[in-house]
């Protein structure tokens, strides 16, 4: 049956909203396939505003891979701002894709990528606008399968009621496998309706279907157990790992928007995974092992990407980009290739050492040297041992001094507040550190024209990390420490103006903590907040802490648990955690031991250059570290 474009109905609304271009589609390299020629149709959603969602790598990669498949179609949809939401409600225009402006409800699968938990209320808006029942149990065969992915999907329990399914880990291969399951089921005439389809997906072991699992609780509110409620459903669901990034060189044709977005550049992921072992870092824990993309594939991707997009900036992405085994050759090779052109290269997520400055110097060969960012994360030596961020004060001062001496004028230092075992003095240590940085910089350059910005955010304990058992610091304490740090930074006139200070207050972190480590009961809170008007919780102008707390009080009134129970309560070793049946490959005993090591300030080396420390991922997942060097070099491009 043909599905009509909603654009004629949307168009009259567009002159009345802010930034209408974001709803129009037609981006360079976007695709609108024939509806009737596809048998499996995906709507891919990034549950935030277009300007944030469009550059998302995950969505772009899956969009391209799915559209390359025969008889398969993928379109994108994003959260609409409240101004358009109100008009869509009054005019009866449903949630649409920006490619074909087709109604989201008409698709087979709605795949939603959750990079953060703060997109949960936006999922509900999209479902509601689409005319899809909010709760999975109320959906019919006319509704798409609502499937979550992304890092937050490693604990999808707070949104379990709203999801039909979730997948953990790398999406490239599993979306193809899911497509084939759906295609086969539809070819057979959709036997057994959506329940059978979900059963087929669940029994494969690679897709988590929350409603096939029952959660039982102790009277005190702790989880007793999570068990499958029917035969053929695995007791544990595992993550997916793509083992050869060179075989998956996506995005090949990056989407180039007309609207302004948060990242105006072409990004190439130079490796996936990180084994540095920073204990706060969920990304580092759940994306193991390290898998490098080869220098030659990176070079090819940069070249095609620039040609296809016209972007003038290229970002070399990863969790710790300077750790690629051939990063020096990559940066030099690219800097040589694009010398004299207007192509800028950037290396985000770098670590604190002097080698890094060499790379940054190379990348800024013909550009300006404005600012460099380092992330010591903890303010004191002790704190950095707790979080396993192996940086000494000496390292930091030496690195920053080198940066200033090489002409970099501004250094940004990133920290966290509210880390486990943190005391006031750990945070105040940041002020001393910043002053030492400025002092050393002034001595090295003989100039007072250097600056240092301290940027600090609240720490949120995340599932599948050693800190999953930790008590989150309450927001009053976080705010008190952040104020004390501000005063300490401002106390000395000699440094006051050279040091910038940026911080976020502690309240949003509590909501993030509730959503990160929540269980299925938190779903009621999310729904209550959404019904009360909660939208765009990642945006400070839309976020309301009071709304979340009031909704939590109402929604959890009949439960033995509350927001504090989910956030500021420390868990013991044997408590069943809501995500224990979801397997990122990490050995639970290793995680617990690492948590104990944290409390004892014992550090752990990176397994790339020291013996395996048995985190469990490689044997569980059948994977291994894949790093170079390959010994190959980037050759100059032939000019035609």
């Amino acid at each position, binding site marked *: 049956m043909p599905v009509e474009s909603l*654009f*004629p109905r949307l*168009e*009259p609304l*567009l*002159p*009345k909203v802010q*930034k*209408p*271009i974001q*709803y*129009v*589609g*037609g*981006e*360079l390299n976007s695709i609108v396939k024939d509806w009737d020629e596809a048998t499996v149709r995906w709507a891919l959603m990034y549950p935030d505003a277009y300007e944030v969602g469009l550059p998302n790598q995950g969505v772009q990669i899956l969009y391209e891979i799915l559209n390359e498949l025969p008889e398969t179609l993928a379109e994108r949809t994003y959260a609409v701002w409240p101004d358009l939401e109100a008009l869509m409600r009054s005019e009866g225009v449903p949630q649409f894709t920006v490619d074909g402006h087709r109604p989201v409800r008409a698709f087979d699968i709605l795949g939603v990528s959750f990079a953060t938990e703060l997109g949960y209320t936006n999922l509900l808006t999209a479902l509601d606008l689409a005319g899809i029942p909010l709760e999975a149990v109320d959906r019919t065969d006319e509704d798409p399968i609502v499937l979550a992915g992304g890092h937050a999907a490693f604990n999808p329990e707070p949104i379990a009621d709203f999801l039909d399914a979730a997948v953990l880990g790398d999406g490239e291969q599993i979306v193809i496998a899911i497509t084939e399951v759906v295609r086969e089921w539809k070819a057979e005439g959709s036997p057994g309706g959506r329940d059978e389809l979900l059963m087929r997906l669940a029994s494969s072991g690679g897709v988590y279907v929350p409603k096939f699992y029952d959660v039982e609780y102790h009277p005190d509110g702790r989880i007793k157990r999570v068990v499958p409620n029917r035969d053929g459903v695995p007791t544990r669901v595992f993550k997916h790992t793509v083992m050869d990034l060179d075989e998956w060189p996506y995005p090949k044709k990056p989407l*180039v928007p*007309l*609207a*302004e977005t948060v990242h*105006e550049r072409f990004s190439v992921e130079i490796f996936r995974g990180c084994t540095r072992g920073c204990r706060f870092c969920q990304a580092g824990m759940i994306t193991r092992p390290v898998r490098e993309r080869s220098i030659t594939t990176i070079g090819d991707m940069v070249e095609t990407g*620039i*040609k*296809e*997009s*016209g*972007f*003038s900036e290229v970002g070399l992405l990863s969790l710790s980009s300077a750790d690629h085994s051939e990063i020096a050759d990559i940066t030099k090779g690219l800097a040589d290739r694009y010398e004299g052109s*207007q192509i800028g290269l950037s290396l985000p997520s770098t670590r604190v050492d002097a080698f890094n400055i060499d790379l940054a110097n190379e990348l800024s060969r013909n550009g*300006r040297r404005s600012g460099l960012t380092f992330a010591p994360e903890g303010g004191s030596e002790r704190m950095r041992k707790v979080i396993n961020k192996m940086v000494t004060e000496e390292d930091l001062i030496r690195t920053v001094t080198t940066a200033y001496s090489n002409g970099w004028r501004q250094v940004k230092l990133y920290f966290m507040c509210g880390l486990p075992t943190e005391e006031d003095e750990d945070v105040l240590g940041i002020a001393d550190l910043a002053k030492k940085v400025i002092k050393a910089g002034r001595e090295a350059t003989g100039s007072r024209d250097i600056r240092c910005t301290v940027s600090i955010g609240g720490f949120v304990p995340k599932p599948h990390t050693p800190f999953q058992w930790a008590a989150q610091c309450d927001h009053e304490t976080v705010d008190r420490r952040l104020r004390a740090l501000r005063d300490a930074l401002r106390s000395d006139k000699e440094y006051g103006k050279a040091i910038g200070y940026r911080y976020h207050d502690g309240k949003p972190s509590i909501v993030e903590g509730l959503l990160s480590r929540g269980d299925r009961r938190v779903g009621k809170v999310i729904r209550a907040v959404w019904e009360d008007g909660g939208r765009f919780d990642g945006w400070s102008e839309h976020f309301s802490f009071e709304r979340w707390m009031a909704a939590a009080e109402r929604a959890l009134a009949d439960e033995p648990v509350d927001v504090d129970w989910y956030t500021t309560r420390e868990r013991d070793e044997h408590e069943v955690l809501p995500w224990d049946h979801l397997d990122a490959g990490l050995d639970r005993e290793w995680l617990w031991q690492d948590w104990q090591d944290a409390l004892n300030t014992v550090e752990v080396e990176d397994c790339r250059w020291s013996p395996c420390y048995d985190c469990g991922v490689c044997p569980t997942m059948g994977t291994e570290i894949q790093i170079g060097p390959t010994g190959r070099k980037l050759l100059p491009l032939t000019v035609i």
Partner: protein
Amino acid sequence: MQRLRVRYAKRGRLRFTSHRDISRAVERAVRRAGIPVAYSAGFSPHPKISYAGAAPTGVASEAEYLEIGLSRPCDPRRVRDDLDASLPPGLDVLDVVEARDGNLADRLEGSMWELRLPGADPGEAERAVKEFLAADRVEVERLTKKGMRRFDAREAVRSLAVVEGPGITAGQETVQPCVILRMVVRHETPAVRPDDVLMGLRLVAGFAPQSPPAVTRLAQGPLDAMTGEPADPFAFDRAGGDR
């Protein structure tokens, strides 16, 4: 340095692009097309592309203008084809000429606009136009960056009429029965925009169509003394410099 002057159209859905959206799209298209654009010197070099009198967000146009400085001379026809192929459909390059002396922006003295008003009453429109043209001054208000401003919308309007029959089809993709207004407005400060004139029609005659208008700029250029309509601003460049 060779300078090329470009006339382009902003059509259909792409009328929702803002001026900033267009300038990003043009910069990227220039790079993709391999056009040797010149860059400014200094700390953060930027491409030498300048825009003259861009139509507002939401307004379609058949007559937008920009000027590109090149680091080596190029055939204007080739630049027209390459740039057009590289821009998204809806941002369409119509004409490219090599710039002679003079400032292009100065030649853009006025614009011809077309407004399509779905569901409006033709008789009411005629009456409102007549009253508007009969007035000496029509004070309107608009929210600008400097706050609410009050100014005359009448004097800048050189002509205003209800058009018989279907006009040019640029603009909205959905066709509904509508009243079509066509007007020539002189560029002034503060600029009098088509919606200011529409507000004027409401103020003088209570003419208030329910749906927002679909607006298209049809032409932009020096105002011809005889016809009162915008002439081709490239005529001087095309004539090889002799007037």
